[in-house]
């Protein structure tokens, strides 16, 4: 069975080899960053799937993956046909898209990383199309943005690359820690941007992460995902203490159950 890593065998080269030998089957790309498959039949691509995407969009996305394990399952029949013959199988088109991906020098190779928007980003300084994108990036992984952005995979990647180049966004590795459900509790005082966690939970996360981290709050209907500087507090089991100002600012209500997880600084 043909298997390896896209870092050693770029996808375009693999596909060209399959076309030239006329072999049929499925080229399966294993996660991370996502599960993908390209079905080849009689020297033509007939179907592609990448996460939630299918067809030409899926193939475009897979062309941008620079590092992932793959295997070729010979004679594996396609579940459906999503790419018309004479379309994407044109080698020139594949090479063109691969070239476009290669020109994106600032987009990280690891698409599982989580995006963080530079808090100082000012919308006025950005191209007209990007403020909207910028607003939706915080806390999402790169692959999630590329998969779900309506504008098109390559267009989204190019926009992201531009934002990385300009320093508007950065990416941090996603921590493999499950979100914890906590109940919001009001704290009184003048501080802002600080969240208190029960001491044992804070220490557990500190031990697991071993470097500076912040916490992200999700799962409420307010202003999207929020980040706070975590601090430990005794007698705080199952609670998340937030200052009044932050509760008002983000329209959070005490007693609300939220998902909380740590992210690297």
């Amino acid at each position, binding site marked *: 069975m043909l298997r390896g890593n896209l870092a050693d065998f770029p996808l375009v080269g693999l596909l060209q080899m399959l076309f030239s030998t006329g072999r049929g089957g499925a080229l399966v790309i294993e996660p991370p960053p996502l599960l993908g498959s390209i079905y080849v039949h009689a020297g033509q691509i007939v179907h592609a799937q990448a996460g939630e995407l299918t067809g030409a969009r899926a193939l475009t996305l897979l062309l941008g993956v620079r590092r992932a394990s793959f295997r070729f399952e010979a004679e594996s029949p396609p579940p459906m046909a999503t790419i018309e013959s004479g379309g994407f199988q044109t080698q020139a088109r594949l090479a063109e898209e691969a070239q476009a991906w290669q020109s994106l020098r600032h987009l990280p190779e690891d698409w599982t990383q989580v995006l963080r928007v530079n808090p100082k980003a000012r919308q006025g300084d950005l191209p007209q199309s990007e403020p909207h994108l910028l607003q939706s990036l915080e806390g999402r992984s790169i692959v999630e943005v590329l998969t779900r952005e309506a504008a098109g995979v390559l267009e989204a990647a190019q926009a992201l690359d531009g934002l990385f180049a300009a320093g508007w966004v950065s990416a941090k590795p996603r921590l493999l820690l499950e979100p914890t459900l906590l*109940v919001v*509790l*009001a*704290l*009184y*005082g*003048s*501080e802002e941007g600080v969240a208190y966690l029960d001491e044992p939970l804070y220490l557990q996360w500190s031990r697991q992460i071993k470097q500076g981290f912040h916490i992200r709050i999700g799962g409420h209907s307010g202003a999207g995902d929020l980040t706070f500087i975590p601090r430990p*507090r*005794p*007698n*705080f*089991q*199952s*609670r998340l*203490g937030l*200052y009044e100002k932050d509760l008002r600012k983000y329209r959070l209500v*005490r*007693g609300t159950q939220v998902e909380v997880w740590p992210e690297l600084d």
Partner: protein
Amino acid sequence: MDVLAINALLNRVVFGLEAKFVFLVVGLVLTVALGFIQFRRLGVIVSETLGAIRERAQGFGGQITPFQAAMVAIAATVGIGHFVGMIAAILAGGPGAVFWMWLGYLLGMATKFAEATLAVHFRRSYTDGTVSGGPMFYLSRGLAARFGRGGALLGGAFALFAAIAAFGIGNLSQAGAVGNSLQSAFNVPPAITGLGVAVVVGLIIGGGIRRIAAFAQFIVPVKLLLLALAIIPLLVVHAAQIPAALGQIFASALNLQALAGGALGSYIAMINAGLGRGIFANEAGLGSAPIAHAQAQVDHPVRQGFWGVAEMLVSLAVTTLVALTFLASGLWQREGVGTAPQAAVTLFQAHPSGVGDIILALTLAALAFGTMVSWAFYGEEGASYLFGEGIRWPYRMAFVVIAFVAPIGGFGAFIDVSDTLNGFMAIPNLLALLLLAPLVAQLVREFFQGEPWRPPKD
């Protein structure tokens, strides 16, 4: 002078007008020391208690939630005194008594806040996750630096008074009231009521604070629902007279002309009656409720203090509604209305449901029963403070036996003595509240600066 005469004398001292002014002064000192917290921070208090009602099942680990602790305290506080006691106060002091009752409540809120806060601050936590607290602990631990063993002695005295008073005012009086109510409404023989009360109380208190809290969480809404069913239809019946009743309260309380015209005696009777309800109905200063508040697993004592104020607000609402109903009915002016219990029965004859006597009986029975269970816990905590954990089950057994015999009656002398001891509980408690007022103020300051609670070290 025999024992009962001495008791009667002491009772007049601890529940007399002078004693009531002491309660008021302590409430005033705490109100000032805490920066009028019950008024200035009312929004926070409401948001932390009634506004956090959906968090009632969410504690911070440990035994019972802050809400449950407050329910245990309310189960004890909102009792027959809120109903028959309020009617008695108006019969004795007239409409102006309500004004003085309100004054007692307003200042008492600071007292109850301080009690609940100190109870959590000085409570003892044990390795099995249980806690114990209340005035005996803030007396012994809080006053240790100032009085050495004197604080422990005062704490011991408080615990002794509470342990004995629980058998009388917390058991005999309450079980007797349940027996009377069920006998008058349904002709249930007192012995049967006694057996039923003893079995149910035994089952509840046998489960410790967790089961008591679960019961309180059930009985308090039942009490409030029954009170609403009892009072609101009567208020509707007498709705036209409510504005006049409110006018009478202020006119009577502020009638200084009558005072100058030689009606000093009746004016003092009005103050005495009103303050009696404003202080003793809600138990602020007596030191009983903090024993329940100490059980709350909470991140900061001040947060439980807010529940102390909420308890007062509930109590105030109930007594005020009862008072308005009675005043609007005009019964208080009628000749030959009789004693307070007789007046209550007459009042309920006008109940639009036509079964006012049954509603009254069930309400009184529920009020008394809830009070009884919480007082069993207060007494048990007092006894365990004095004699150790081993006393808990014997104390519970004794409480159950007394609950069995209480409806049969004939324990007037013991009830009188226990009533006096209940008043005695206030003496060390009020002293501690005055001396520890700066500490409570410091805790409040720290809480509103967002600082964590630092429990005291021995």
